[in-house]
């Protein structure tokens, strides 16, 4: 590792420790906000791991997340909790693999459309299954507090950052960057483009499912309409793109302001959240292509040019 990388690692570890101290404030609202931010950070970062380099927009987050909550929901009575998280990861990964194998050989549009409906389809299937078997929702009763959930999510976030960093250095990460630049070139230099994309999609699907599994105790009562909210997928996309997918830390920069804005709008104008989502999408495309990361890079580039001239 180079010196720069040690420095980044040090910064990351420091920030993680500071973030982990949040529950010590004892402020319930702050901690609950922390859980939300931690949850979206993990979701958006893992989303960007796949969608950043490949430019495929995945809207399947809600599906993976929902599947994860249901793993906890249906397993909590029979299995120890710590076993449920890896199970959720495997289930999410398998689902991602199936979706990926069916769609990632094709162009981006097919993928978007497919993932757009995936959450809704799983919701319909789960609802149907529950109607058949006669029970409506599931209770998840644990003695976890918001603090426990928060620390688990932080741990997961650290893991996701490490995985993302490792992928960035690996052959797989290099291959994905080439695919993102030009898929034809990638194919010609001998990269198995479909396999690389599916591999990364599995990572992002598994992580989203684990997040769902961790969050489930917070909901206490799970039903299909809360577990598979399509809004979740869109929020994750916006946060990640707002921050910028060019860097590993990009999504985090988008998650914090957007979560605060979302909380503010949904508490004072609960009916206008849809409008907010729409306007954010438009703002990202027209005003902030590349997100905050892109803006930061442009400003830095301009400053560098100016100092070179002086």
């Amino acid at each position: 590792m180079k010196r720069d990388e040690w420095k980044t690692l040090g910064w990351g570890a420091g920030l993680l420790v500071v973030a982990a101290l949040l529950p010590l404030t004892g402020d319930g609202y702050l901690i609950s906000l922390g859980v939300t931010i931690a949850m979206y950070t993990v979701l958006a970062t893992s989303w960007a791991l796949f969608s950043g380099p490949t430019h495929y927009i995945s809207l399947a987050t809600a599906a993976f997340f929902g599947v994860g909550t249901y793993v906890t929901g249906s397993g909590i009575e029979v299995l120890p909790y710590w076993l449920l998280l890896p199970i959720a990861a495997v289930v999410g990964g398998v689902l991602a693999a199936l979706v990926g194998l069916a769609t990632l050989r094709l162009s981006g549009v097919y993928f978007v459309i497919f993932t757009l409906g995936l959450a809704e389809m799983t919701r319909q299937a789960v609802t149907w299954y529950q109607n058949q078997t006669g029970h409506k929702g599931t209770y998840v009763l644990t003695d976890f507090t918001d603090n426990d959930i928060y620390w688990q999510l932080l741990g997961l976030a650290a893991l996701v950052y490490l995985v993302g960093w490792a992928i960035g250095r690996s052959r797989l990460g290099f291959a994905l960057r080439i695919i993102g630049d030009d898929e034809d070139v990638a194919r010609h230099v001998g990269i198995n483009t479909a396999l690389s994309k599916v591999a990364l999609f599995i990572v992002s699907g598994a992580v989203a499912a684990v997040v769902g599994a961790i969050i489930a105790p917070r909901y206490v009562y799970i039903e299909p309409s809360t577990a598979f909210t399509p809004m979740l997928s869109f929020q994750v996309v916006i946060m990640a793109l707002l921050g910028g997918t060019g860097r590993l830390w990009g999504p985090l920069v988008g998650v914090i302001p957007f979560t605060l804005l979302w909380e503010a709008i949904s508490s004072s104008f609960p009916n206008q959240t849809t409008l907010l989502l729409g306007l954010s999408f438009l703002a990202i495309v027209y005003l902030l292509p590349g997100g905050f990361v892109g803006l930061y890079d442009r400003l830095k580039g301009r400053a560098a040019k100016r100092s070179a001239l002086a």
Partner: protein
Amino acid sequence: MDIVITGLILGGTYALIALGLNLQYGVSRIMNLANGEMLVIGAFTAFTLFTVAQVSPLLTIFIVAPVAYVLNWLIYRIMLRPLVNRAKNRGMLEQDAILTTFGLSFVMVGIMLWAFGGDYFSYSYLSRPVVIFGDNFGLNRVVAFLCAAILCAGLYLWLNVSRAGMAIRAVAVSPEHARLVGIDVPKLSARAFALGGAVTAVGGAVISTFLTLDASTGVMFTMKALIIVIMGGVGDVRGTILAALVLGVGETMVATLIDPGLTLAAAYALFILILLFRPQGFFGRKPT
């Protein structure tokens, strides 16, 4: 038999909506994810005019079509043209277009929720039964189907016979080469986008005579239309109509035989089969 006819009737109206989307995607190369909202706007207009002034939905079409045409033309010129010019390749344009039209769809839903609230709306128009092959069907559904069939046939003929239709097909096949034979591609793209939007909005007015809708149902129709377009093949009118009928029948079958809550799952099952076995559409040729 009952299922097949109900399915075909539903599929007929789907065909109209999907044709609108296919024009937009096949010719202007914009995957318009706000398509379903255009449909809901058409339906809202028909509903409002019917309840306020008792205007027949079949007449409303003549108001909805030009208004939707102008609206979509403006959307293309103001919002999408800059993206087309900015994009370095097709993939970039696709990503930008997806994000923009998503944003647009949410904005439209937001405005409609704000203006009309989230209630379901429906009205009773021609809800008398008619007998076909010994079974009862709602007259409104049959009329809607006939209406859709006439419009689809008209569009098909216009695209295949007229000079303007030929130009549009040329752009659909290859925008680069269409330019070489003197076709004004940017102008035609804007027109095709506007026309597609108008067709979808008319579909919405027609569908509102027998379906109950609310401000946020648009996305369901967008999804179905997208699945139909991909099944039928991008830019292929015959394929779109066939795919719409297949989807209509398949959905009705699942809804009546298994569970009405599984219609989307049925559409998806069809979609997966198509993606796995014929990703180029029913009549499409394999890309070389």
